């Protein structure tokens, strides 16, 4: 089922949580709403679910206006960050709840409910747990029950609010892969909220990046990572180094260094280079070689993170090499090196001079 978000605006008192949000989600897509805390991503999700009402705008499911439909009539599956399992019910009753509370006319028989719950328990690999209570389960198991409970009602869309936020790193990774497989199997349109960019990139078909109640960019993980449309997105997705300077005739001048920026307008600008987009050399190879001193070397598994200090401005830069490159170079702390950006993206500072 497709979702259309139209001009959604939401206030909490005088605080504007969402400003004119427009978004189209295709049927069967898995979408991540990604942003820092306070960016409005959870508010948007709750408005789609009907748990909150927007001041302005419309929510359409399959082009039908659902804006004023009560949450209980929207047939959405909602998974909460802290599971929100019914503590007074067994796992079986938790999953069966959505079917049991249906009006008598459309309620499945006891046998059908039991069959359905058993299937779902198998799906989430908790067959032996049906008589236990939520408090007897681990965090990862609880979230799987929450998912099974949401899926039991065969929802039009599945909405997940930071579903793995309360879990430890390993379980989190397993569960998000599992969510992806589940989504491919059921093919239900899904939207999940996260502040973890790795999680969003790993799982989602498309990522919606939000900041301060607005959408900054929408695109596939590759699009938003490789072609961020503004400094915020660039900064938010992965570690990035900033070069503040001036563009003159296609060159960004920063400190003693000149970098090629052929498509940029003249003026005060900032260059952005991702940590893994650097070459480290022992000799200068052009005007864009930045003389630096190695300050720190951290080995983190297959990646080596090197912090260098620019000679001209004393600003730190963060560089990531893979283990092989690092071994080849035989770098040492305190050594003088030249650092050259492989890929540079320049954004004009509209705020400069104001």
């Amino acid at each position: 089922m497709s979702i259309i978000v139209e001009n959604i605006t939401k206030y909490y008192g005088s605080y504007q949580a969402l400003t004119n949000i427009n978004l189209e989600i295709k049927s069967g897509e898995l979408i991540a709403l990604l942003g820092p805390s306070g960016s409005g991503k959870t508010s948007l999700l709750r408005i789609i679910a009907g748990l909150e009402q927007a001041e302005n705008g419309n929510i359409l499911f399959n082009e039908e206006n659902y804006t004023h439909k009560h949450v209980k009539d929207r047939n959405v599956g909602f998974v909460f960050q802290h599971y929100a399992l019914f503590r007074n019910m067994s796992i079986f009753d938790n999953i069966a709840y959505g079917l049991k509370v249906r009006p008598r006319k459309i309620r499945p028989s006891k046998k059908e409910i039991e069959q359905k719950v058993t299937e779902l328990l198998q799906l989430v690999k908790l067959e032996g747990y049906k008589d236990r209570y939520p408090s007897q389960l681990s965090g990862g198991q609880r979230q799987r029950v929450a998912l099974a409970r949401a899926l039991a009602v065969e929802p039009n869309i599945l909405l997940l609010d930071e579903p793995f936020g309360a879990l430890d790193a390993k379980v989190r990774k397993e569960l998000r892969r599992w969510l992806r497989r589940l989504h491919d199997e059921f093919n239900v349109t899904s939207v999940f909220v996260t502040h973890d960019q790795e999680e969003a990139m790993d799982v989602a078909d498309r990522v919606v990046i939000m900041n301060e109640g607005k959408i900054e960019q929408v695109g596939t993980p590759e699009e938003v990572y490789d072609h961020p449309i503004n400094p915020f997105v660039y900064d938010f997705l992965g570690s990035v180094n900033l070069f503040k300077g001036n563009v003159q005739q296609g060159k960004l001048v920063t400190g003693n260094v000149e970098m090629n920026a052929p498509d940029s307008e003249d003026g005060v600008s900032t260059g952005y280079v991702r940590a893994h987009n650097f070459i480290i050399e022992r000799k200068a190879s052009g005007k864009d070689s930045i003389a630096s001193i190695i300050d720190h070397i951290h080995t983190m598994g297959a990646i080596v993170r090197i912090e260098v200090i620019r000679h001209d401005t004393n600003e730190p830069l963060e560089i990531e090499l893979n283990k092989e490159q690092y071994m080849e170079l035989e770098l040492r702390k305190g050594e003088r090196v030249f650092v050259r950006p492989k890929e540079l993206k320049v954004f004009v500072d509209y705020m400069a001079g104001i």
Partner: protein
Amino acid sequence: MEHEHSVVAKTNGPVIMTKNATKEPKSIQWILISIVLLFLTLFLVVPLIAIFVKAFEKGADAYLAAIAHPDSLAAIKLTLIVVLITVPLNAVFGVVAAWTITKYDFKGKNFLITLIDLPFSVSPVIAGLIFVLLFGLHGALGTVLQSLGLKVIFSIPGIVIASIFITFPFIARELIPLMQSQGTSEEEASLTLGAGGFKTFWYVTLPNIKWGLLYGVILCNARTIGEFGAVSVVSGHIRGMTNTMPLHIEILYNEYQFSAAFAVASLMSIFAIITLIIKSFIEWKTGFKSTKAS
């Protein structure tokens, strides 16, 4: 595993130290325990025994006769009627108030909480007087009520109203912290699964608060049975008509019928002891502690 053990041992160290730091010598412990026991015996156990001794002073026959006296039976009946109206009403009010306060956000919420506490801070006698001034013959609403032929003061409705006022906070106060700590996400989950407001309350909210609710009901019940001040002001002390058990005891006592007074008092004490037993059972059953305002 080795490593984990050493960590546990390390964190255990300081914990034991702090425990030791607050531990008194054995002798002081015993002295403190003795003081508490002595105090409880003197002020609670001895009076309780005295009630029963005094009640049976003239023998079991006199005891039964005192309780079977029409005025006593009328007082017991009236008390039960008041309880049967007051406690259910306050249970409903309490749940509604707690629900409103914990599940919604609105302006003036703190004021509402303060308002709920009002009966705790107002003297029961004053509370009773308020209703006399309001509903009495010369009261603000008295003339209207009289023209309609309704009598509130010096009759059962007045007693019920005063009892409701006095015992209103017990259930609400018990439920508010409980429901606050439980949050609203289970209710939200229920709504997204297609359950309406009533089903959500019945299947999700009520089971989660049932022990707290029962605890509040018991406190409310005990206070309704025992309430003297407010009820005394509005009842008018009409024998066999508007006397509840505490009022009846006072009258018997003032008429020097000590055995009869204590016989009825012993009956109330039995109610109180049963209440205590149920209360302890609930606490044991849930590990639930009263979080009433101190």
